[in-house]
Each structure stands twice: as structure tokens, then as C-alpha cells.
């Protein structure tokens, strides 16, 4: 009885999750992220990044 309830509950939710997944376009590919507003990570400390100002072209 408890076993069957547990099986039904977990399997029902998994089935529902699968069904919801088949309706989602972002499962297989997603749009590119919005670009960073400012340099992140190593780019912050990289001297080249700071040299590339509009004036030095």
C-alpha cells in the first residue's frame, strides 16, 4: 500500500516533468546571454583591455 503510493507519487511527478520538458524550447538550445556590461574575471586586470580606448585606433 505505502509502496504503491510512493511509486505512484514519484513516477507521476517524473512523468509530469517529462511532459513539461517536451513543451520547452530551451531544453535543446537557449539564446545567447546578454553581454557583460563591464569586463569580468581576468579581463579586469588585463592591461590590454584598458589600452583599447576609443582614442588609440
Amino acid at each position, binding site marked *: 500500500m*505505502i*509502496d504503491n*503510493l*510512493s*511509486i505512484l*507519487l*514519484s*513516477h507521476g*511527478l*517524473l*512523468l509530469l*516533468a*517529462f*511532459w*513539461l*520538458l*517536451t513543451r*520547452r524550447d*530551451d*531544453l*535543446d*538550445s*537557449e539564446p*545567447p*546571454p*546578454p*553581454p*557583460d*556590461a*563591464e*569586463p*569580468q*574575471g581576468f*579581463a579586469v586586470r588585463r592591461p590590454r*583591455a584598458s589600452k*583599447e580606448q*576609443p582614442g588609440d*585606433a
Partner: protein
Amino acid sequence: MRDLFFVGYLGLLMLMAFKRPFLFTLVYAYIDIVAPQRLSYFLLNSIPLSLILFALAVLGFLISDDKRDVRVSPRWALLIVLLAYCGYSTTVALEPVAAQEKWSWVWKALVFAAFLPLLLKTRLRIEALALTLVLCASALIVTGGIKTALGGGGYGSLVLLIDDNSGLYEGSIISCVAIAIIPLIVWLAQHGTIFKPDWKVKAYAAALTFAALLIPVGTQARTGLVCIAVLALLAIRQTKRRFLYLTGAALVGLAAIPFLPSAFSDRMETIKDYKADESAATRVAVWKWTWEFVQEHPFGGGFDAYRINKIRYDLPVVDENGFDTGAVDRKEIVDQGRAYHSSYFEMLGEQGFPGLIIWLLIHVGGVWRMEMLARMYKKRNRPDEGWVAPLATALQNAQIIYLVGSLFVGIAFQPFVYMLIAMQLGLDTYLARRRNEAAWTPIRKQRMRAAQT
């Protein structure tokens, strides 16, 4: 009846997977964790389900997935090295027949763990895997939780769906795994997009967490209690109001004691008196044996090398009050072929020092990488990436709980844990690609690119 249900159910899942081939991978994970073929009496028993599903998953990947997004990481390479190394050690194993038997499932777990990250290339896929792992484990956790709450259970006697001691169905293993996935349950309830975090999802997550906490009580596996303690400690790190949390946790802990079955309290008491406990004494003796064994066999003895051990150890004689009667009068116990009861010694004894080092790099490396990611994304603080740091921390906590739990249980190759590792690897490479795509470029370069197109 149950047979027909499972056949129909698998048919439905596979029907949906033909629409979205990535789902074949999740169906494979489901079969690996829940093992429906063992829950049924005929039909599914006779079909090589895992093999068929794995073939379909690979086929789906080869035909329909965009391979440009595929990336690998150093830890992924280590998984391949471990696979090759274990394969080699099996050919020179001291117990060839037993080693072959263990290898027959270990390689599948490792190959699947290496395959999985290649597919995890969208946020939704990572979340779908997390949800599948949690829901599959919940099939065992819900029944175990309810039976324990109704007063059932006992060491080795809490039956979870089937009376079987393999895979997740073993008491100590499910105790460790049930606690390890609690951080993932919490993450899904806060950041899930498949089941949006409304009151229903939160209520179910809370109930499932409670059931997971009851599993160590029901199975009376001491490892589970240690895992709960680790989880409580890890939660302190994330709590803002630490004093309130500590007070609350202490109160809940104290309030729970009267409700715990006395058999559970008695068994947990033995953690303190481990010297007079046969199960604990054997472990220490096996660990000593393993250490001496690898001095002569630094490359290990292959899978199940413990079968050759013969250990002799003393157990202090205790009087009727449970007190040690003194070192003079000791009961000598001789044992043969005792298992390692620790993943670390399992790796050391079976795969030697190189195997243990690779294994540690994969697992401890996971804790380290997840820490790096969590810190990086907290600092980036972008609104569209709010889910990343909590997931990295959840995966890190799951890994730490596993690493502590596996001190006392030989689960070095538990497939479920390798799926968690695969999720870490997938998350890591996915984020690296997304960071690259979002990387800041100077306005001049952006203009040049725009002019070219």
C-alpha cells in the same frame, strides 16, 4: 499488475523521449536508480533495458544534438583515466571472477558519467537531471519515510519497495544519498523552472526533506546520522541568522529525541562505544589489513581484493552494564573476506595509491570547483545568473556529505554519485561557455563586428 504498469510507464516515457532525444538520457538514469526491472516479476526482467536506453541516448546525441557546444574539463579526463585504470586493474586482479563482476557495473557507471556532461548544455537540461535524480530517489525515500513515521524500520529490516540489498536499496547507501540530495531538493524548490516554486512545490519539497531525514532513523544506519550532522554544519555556512539557526536546530534536535525509537537511540549510542562494537572493530581491522596490503601491492589488488583477507582482532569483553572489563580478558575474533566499509580504503585496496589519488582528485576536486563557481557567480551578481551560485553550493554540499558518509561505507563507485559528479562537470563547462559568450568586448570591436556583417 505492477508489471503492466511499469511496461506502460516506460513506453510513455520513451514516447516522449522520441520527441526530445535528450530525455532518453534521463530515462536511462531512471532505470539505473529505480531499477524497475527488479520491481517487476517478469516482462522487464528479461530485457536488457539499460543497454537499449544507453544506445538510444547515444544515438539521440549523435543525430540530433549540436556538437559545437560540447566541451570537456580536466576532471572529465580524470574520469576517463580512472575508467582505463580500473579496466587494466581488472585484468590483473587477485580475485579475477569477483573483479570481473564488479567491473561489469562499474564501467557502465563511469561511461555514463563521462557521457552525461557532453549533453548538459542548457540550464534546463541541468535542472532536468537534478529533478530526475531527486524524483527517482524519492521513490525510495517516500516509502522509507512513511514506514519509519508509522513506526516500522530497524537495521537491515526497513524494506524499501523490494527486499534487496543492492544499488540504492541498501540501508547505509540510501541513508547517505537521501541526506546528500537534500541541498538539491532545496535548490529545486527555490530556483526550479520545470515545477515553478509555488506553495505546492515548496510544501512537497519540505515533506520530502523530512522523509529524507527519517531514512537514517528507519534504516538505523549510523552513517546517516553522521551525514545529518554534516548537513547541519554545512547549513550554518549559508545561514544569515546563525544564532537563530543554531538555537532552532538544537531545539528541534532535542524535541526529536523522545520520538526516536529506542532501538535507534541504542544503536546510535554505539558510535561512542565503538571499541566494544564488533562492526566497528572489524572496520578498523580491515583498514589496518588494507594499509599493510598496499605496502606490498602499491597498485592495489583489483576489484574485490578484500576477499583474500583474513583478519584477527580482539574485542574487549564487556559486562552486563556495558562496561569494558579490562584489557586482560579479551575475546578474539577471526574473520575472513571482510569488505572495506569505507570508500577510501576500498579505492586504496582495490586500485592502490594511483587509483585513490585519481578518485580523490575527481571527488575533492568537485568540492573545490563548486566553491570557485559559487564565489565567482556571487561576485558577478547578474540577475539572469541568480540560480548558479546556489546550485554550485548545493552540489558541493551533496559532495561533502557523500565524502564524509563514504568514510564508513564502501560506495566509491555508486552510480548515483557519479551522476552528481556528471552534473558538476556539465555545470562547469556550461558556465564556461556562457561566460565566454557573454564576455565584455570593447565598443570598438563591437562596431567592427557590426560593420563586417
